[in-house]
């Protein structure tokens, strides 16, 4: 029984496992549905700025002065013109402040704008005019976004009005007037050109998370379940090295994890408009290292448990905190100190951070060499531990 036949055995065992996976139709469908569902959900929970469009907004013009002399009508027209360009809001006019409130309450609109009754007269007598933005407190995430955006829009309109006023009154040139009204021109820019959407931030995280979840459910089935139903005995009673059995399992599960990762990557590029800045090969390489660590961890756990049920339970218990602590949704640097410490011991943390740098920032191998090195270490340690634990578990 040389090394060659050992590898052959491992490949046959992997063949068997993969055949088994590929014949489970429901399982295959879930391989695609799960990431779709996750990404859709994450996109919904955390709407991105640039992704905000057609937010239904109610507008109530309570200005006493209507018609040609009304400055509020002009204001609304200006707002509509601006909105036509960005498509951010879906404006509809309502009659009163009470209507705005009730429309938000019954979910018809997500926010409202109320123009005060003294709008025209205030402006004409040199006072500030009132515009109230009404928020939907039941949806704080959207509310704060809309509020920021609306405030910005209205302030921008105010600046324009003031600039125009200066220009009319004192005949100062338009750009000089603008500098007087708004002396600071603030602009934000990222490292890579173009807008990033939130998906680009979460896509690497989701990739890590979905791969982890599919492995953590696949491994108990591949090992504990086989032991439980007794089929593992068939391999153990054959002249097959324990390493070959473990190797077969690792190959099959790694293939499965990689497939899952590639599916997530494809979905995020094709359906969610993620632009990958770095090299795809590098992404797959990082994914592979991450998968090794996860498979090692999974086998380690399943070796210590006797049934698929317990194994799955322990896996789920571990998966959940790993998901949050490894920076899938929130940057680790924003977490409390002790969580940051825990995060340092999770292989997924490094995989996700490296993936994110490659996907979003387009860095090369050198920039993430530390992450890769650590992932490598995790992989070796966890797989060796898994081998020992598996070896021991088989002799019970």
């Amino acid at each position: 029984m040389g090394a060659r036949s050992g590898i052959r055995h491992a490949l046959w065992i992997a063949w068997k496992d993969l055949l088994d996976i590929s014949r489970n139709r429901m399982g295959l469908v879930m391989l695609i549905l799960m990431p779709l569902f996750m990404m859709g959900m994450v996109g919904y929970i955390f709407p991105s700025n640039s992704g905000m469009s057609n937010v239904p907004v109610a507008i109530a013009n309570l200005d006493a002065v209507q018609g040609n002399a009304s400055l509020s009508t002009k204001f609304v027209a200006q707002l509509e013109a601006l909105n036509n360009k960005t498509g951010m809001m879906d404006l509809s006019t309502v009659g009163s402040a009470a209507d705005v409130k009730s429309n938000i309450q019954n979910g018809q609109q997500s926010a409202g704008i109320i123009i005060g009754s003294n709008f025209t007269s205030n402006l004409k007598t040199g006072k500030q005019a009132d515009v109230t933005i009404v928020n939907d407190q039941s949806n704080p995430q959207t509310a704060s976004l809309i509020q920021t955006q609306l405030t910005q829009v209205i302030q921008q309109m105010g600046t324009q009005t003031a600039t125009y006023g200066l220009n009319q009154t004192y005949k100062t040139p338009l750009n000089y007037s603008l500098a007087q009204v708004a002396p600071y021109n603030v602009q934000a820019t990222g490292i890579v050109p173009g807008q990033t959407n939130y998906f680009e931030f979460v896509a690497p995280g989701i990739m890590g998370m979905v791969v982890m979840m599919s492995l953590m459910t696949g491994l108990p089935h591949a090992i504990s379940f086989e032991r439980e139903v007794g089929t593992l005995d068939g391999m153990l009673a054959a002249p097959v090295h324990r390493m070959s059995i473990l190797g077969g399992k690792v190959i099959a599960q790694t293939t499965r994890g990689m497939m899952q990762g590639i599916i997530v990557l494809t979905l995020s590029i094709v359906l969610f408009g993620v632009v990958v800045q770095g090299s795809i090969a590098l992404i797959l390489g990082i994914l592979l290292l991450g998968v090794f660590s996860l498979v090692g961890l999974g086998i380690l756990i399943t070796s210590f448990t006797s049934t698929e049920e317990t194994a799955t339970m322990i896996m789920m218990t571990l998966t959940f905190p790993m998901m949050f602590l490894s920076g899938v949704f929130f940057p680790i640097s924003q977490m409390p100190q002790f969580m940051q410490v825990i995060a340092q011991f999770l292989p997924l943390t490094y995989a996700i951070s490296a993936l994110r740098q490659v996907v979003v920032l387009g860095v090369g191998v050198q920039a993430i060499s530390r992450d890769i090195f650590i992932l490598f270490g995790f992989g070796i340690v966890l797989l060796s531990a898994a081998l020992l634990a598996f070896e021991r578990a088989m002799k019970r």
Partner: protein
Amino acid sequence: MADVAIKATNLVKKFRDFVAVDHLSFEVKKGEIFGFLGPNGAGKTTTIRMLCTLSSPTEGSATVAGFDIAHQGNRVREHIGLVSEKMIMYDRLTARENMRLFGELYDIPRDALRERIDKLLQVVNMEKWADHQIGTFSTGMKQRINVIRALLNEPEILFLDEPTLGLDPQSTNEIRDFARSINDDAGTTIILTTHAMAEADMLCDRISIVDYGKIVALDTPSNLKKVITGADTSVIELDVPNITPTLVSDIQSLSCTQTVTVEDETHIKVHASGDESCDNVIDAVRSGAGQIRSIRNVEPTLEDVFLYLTGHEVRAQVADKVTTKEPRSRHGARVQSRIR
């Protein structure tokens, strides 16, 4: 030593403090069908698992096909085939794929393997189903594949752990005939565990009766039955339409009675010793107002042997069906010394 297939010396298996197998020593000759007969939890499966290198003994040693189970595991595994209690097959693979996988694990050359698979499928009449997934098979069909799967490597020694459990009478007979023919044709040594007495009786050359991890008796079926007759014990079956608990305890309290078993609503089986035993039992039934429809002296079956040796029934753990006069250990000990 050349004719010894298995030699076990003082095998012990403990699960924590629980002793599942208690100092088992026995020898199986080449070409023999050797039976382990015992109730649930007797330690049959545990013994088989140790011999197949699936579990390591707590104490003791054994050689299988001439190789030490502790140190030459792989050599042992090359020479054995295992049909375990749980079927060793993957539901989503076809019959052929399952066999292919295991054939490859035994390093059987590809062409030889293909031939062997076809031949084995033919023997059990399953060629038609070769390319169907196992999950769609009936239990009987599954078991046929499961058994031929264990024969792929043409093992010297075949372990059959309750191979007919849960099968209908027809499939049961097929499997038994098949086991017989493997033994006849290829000379394969077979280790069979069962708690079906008839199965052990018809198949096995020698039977070891195990109970609580110990061998209580080890001999050929006919010699085992002689234990009862030789011990001057007769097996009496009475057909009594009106059995009452008092009646049973009356019979039980007779000095000649060893065990009383209520077999069904109208039948009582009594193990009794001595020349007068039949008369005494009849008197007891009559004085207890029992009506005797018929009475006969039956040939002891293995079941009776087991009952006699262990003091409890093999199949049913239904305590209220069995009433034992003497503690089981005394019976066991007495007979064991007689056998040796």
